[in-house]
């Protein structure tokens, strides 16, 4: 990677001024995004609160339908124009994004906050040359001249590790490989030197060696540019070594949020623990039986009244079924979780022991049930609960 030490073409400082490192860069408070569908209100994101310091990296982890992608788009205000309600506030460098007009938001997007999407082929415009797509935002936001923008674009391509950047500026996206395309989308995101990058599954469509390259690149750039990064992914492995904090989402809510080392050292939420345990480990011997999560995620139109994870939880108690636990701090060092009977605590392990001893709630019997492809697909959810419950 070339270090961008000599940068004649660097854009002028942006309007909101340099972030105060002592204040949060991003404060999301009670953010809820609900979609009005034919089946009712889908609570895709349901009361998410967190904050991010300048330069910090947050991993948002969840499975299909957990709401992690909608969360990313809600922060940016990138939601369909109709049948959506977004409540709560998103404060960025002290400015309330939720109160901004679409026009004001357009100044923030791309310039202050940039987004990287999963599929570089669809996030790049196939009929425009790479150079045009990179320089578009700096010319628009920063009023750079065509010549200066091109020099800056070439520098950006060089920065993201694309060989012969001057030549690649004139390529069309289809002339590049998947990894190169994702590098281009990163270059586009970096163009205005944003303070925050939201990367939504940036490596899911890529091969494992290319994934490693892209994640390394993001990490290096983030460190050298002092940007904050939200890394949205389904893969705990992707965030484990590369984030400061991790937020685990389930059914539209953050169920556990902790500094990365603390989270892995002591998982408190039963879902986080179950998710990690279901991943095959390289260290395990072949044919090790994998632990599964019984049942399926709830229907987000009518989530369970208590804890969202209660129907599938191995530690579930009566209280969990009726009362929704708050995201509360526990164990110090900013570890927060949404559970009455946290894993690894006395009451949690007592609950597990009680369930294992016999009187197990429905969950334990459904050891092979499968999750739906998305909450939207769960039209037959009531009938399907039993689909997977036979067998082993």
């Amino acid at each position, binding site marked *: 990677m070339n270090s961008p030490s000599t940068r004649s073409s660097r854009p002028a400082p942006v309007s909101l001024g340099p972030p105060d490192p002592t204040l949060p860069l991003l404060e999301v408070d009670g953010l809820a995004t609900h*979609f*009005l*569908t*034919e*089946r009712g209100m*889908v609570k*895709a994101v349901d009361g998410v609160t967190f904050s991010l310091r300048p330069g910090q990296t947050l991993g948002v982890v*969840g*499975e*299909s*339908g*957990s*709401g*992690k*992608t*909608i969360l990313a*788009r809600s922060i940016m205000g990138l*939601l*369909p*124009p*109709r*049948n*959506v309600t977004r409540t709560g506030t998103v404060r960025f460098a002290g400015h309330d994004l939720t109160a901004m007009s679409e026009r004001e938001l357009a100044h923030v997007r791309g310039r202050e906050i940039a987004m990287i999407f999963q599929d570089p082929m669809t996030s790049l415009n196939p009929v425009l040359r790479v150079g045009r797509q990179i320089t578009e935002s700096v010319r628009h936001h920063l009023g750079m001249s065509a010549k200066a923008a091109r020099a800056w674009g070439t520098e950006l391509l060089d920065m993201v590790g694309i060989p012969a950047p001057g030549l690649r500026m004139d390529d069309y996206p289809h002339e590049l490989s998947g990894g190169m395309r994702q590098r281009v989308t990163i270059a586009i995101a970096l163009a205005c030197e944003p303070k925050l990058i939201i990367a939504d*599954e940036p490596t*899911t469509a890529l091969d494992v060696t290319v994934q490693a390259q892209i994640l390394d690149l993001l990490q290096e750039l983030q460190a050298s540019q002092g940007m904050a990064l939200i890394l949205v992914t*389904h*893969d705990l492995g992707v965030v484990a070594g590369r984030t400061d904090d991790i937020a685990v989402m389930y059914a539209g809510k953050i169920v556990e949020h902790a500094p990365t080392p603390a989270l892995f050292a002591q998982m408190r939420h039963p879902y986080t623990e179950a998710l990690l345990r279901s991943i095959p480990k390289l260290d395990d011997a072949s044919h090790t039986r994998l632990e599964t999560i019984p049942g399926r995620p709830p229907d*987000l139109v009518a989530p369970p009244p208590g804890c969202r994870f209660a129907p599938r939880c191995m530690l579930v108690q009566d209280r969990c079924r009726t009362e929704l636990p708050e995201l509360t701090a526990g164990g110090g060092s900013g570890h927060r979780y949404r559970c009455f009977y946290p894993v690894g605590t006395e009451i949690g392990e007592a609950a597990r022991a009680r369930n294992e001893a016999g009187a197990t709630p429905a969950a334990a019997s459904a050891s092979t049930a499968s999750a739906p*492809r*998305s*909450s*939207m*697909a769960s*039209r*037959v959810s*009531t*009938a399907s609960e*039993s689909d997977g419950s036979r067998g082993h």
Partner: protein
Amino acid sequence: MPVPQQPDLTALPSSSSAQRAAAVLVGSGTSGATVDDGQVLRRRLPLSFWISAVFLAIIVLAAVTADWLPFVDPVEDYDPQALAAGPSGEHLFGTTSNGNDVLSIVVQGARTSLIVGLFAVALGFFFGGLLGLVAGYFRGWFDTVISAVIDILLAFPALVLALAIVSFKGPSLTVVTITLGILAIPAVARVARAATLQYASREFVLAARTLGASHKRVIFREVLPNVVIPMAAVSLVAVAVVMVAESGLAFLGAGVPADTPSWGSLMKLGQGQLDKGAAHICLFPAAALFITVYSLNTIGDTLRQRFDVGRGVL
């Protein structure tokens, strides 16, 4: 045991593109399995569909039951007291310049138009569907030839071709039907081929092959049930096009024989009266044609959207 719930196409309020976008967003949160949102979201049929269906039902019903309805014979009976008379209590749609009852001709003409439309499209549906399926499934040189022929036929001015055939073979209901049927083949074949291409690459087709299913079985049991929907949608539109063509031919005097009542020949008859204060002779058959064609198009479009086959197919 819970009762399996069937998709209920009418039970839910109507949707919009925004809702579908929302569904895609909600569903796309992940690496998870693909969401076939077209299937996931059920949509109520729009009002325009029902209005069209009612119009069409009235016209079909009138055409089918014309012989039993208390109409005068559109050819034999004429009213010498009312030549080119406007609508009245006795002649609801008025009369022609020969004194024939316009309502009777419109109703009997509906029968002609529907017979030609349905049989011609049935011809196109069968042969076009077969050609499209086979070409799209096997690809290769056969596909190349079929596609070339389809393109040539589609590029040829259809009405001129129809005029040529009809004037060569002589005007009869059969000749007009077969001629228009031949013209419907490439349209259906193209849609069937495109849809077949789309489904033949799906893994369930591959799975059927690896199970040892014959090509015939795969084509008719696996591919056809999926392809038949876009074919049906385009066929409804084709019926409308054929009906317009049939009227066009009759208007040009190259349609069904003169003694067969037809909207086209009625319009031709009315053409001469347009400037003589008898516009109704043209107006009523034209309105009947318009309503029928509009209804067929609306229903065809609704079905195509419903089954989400519009993209890249038509």
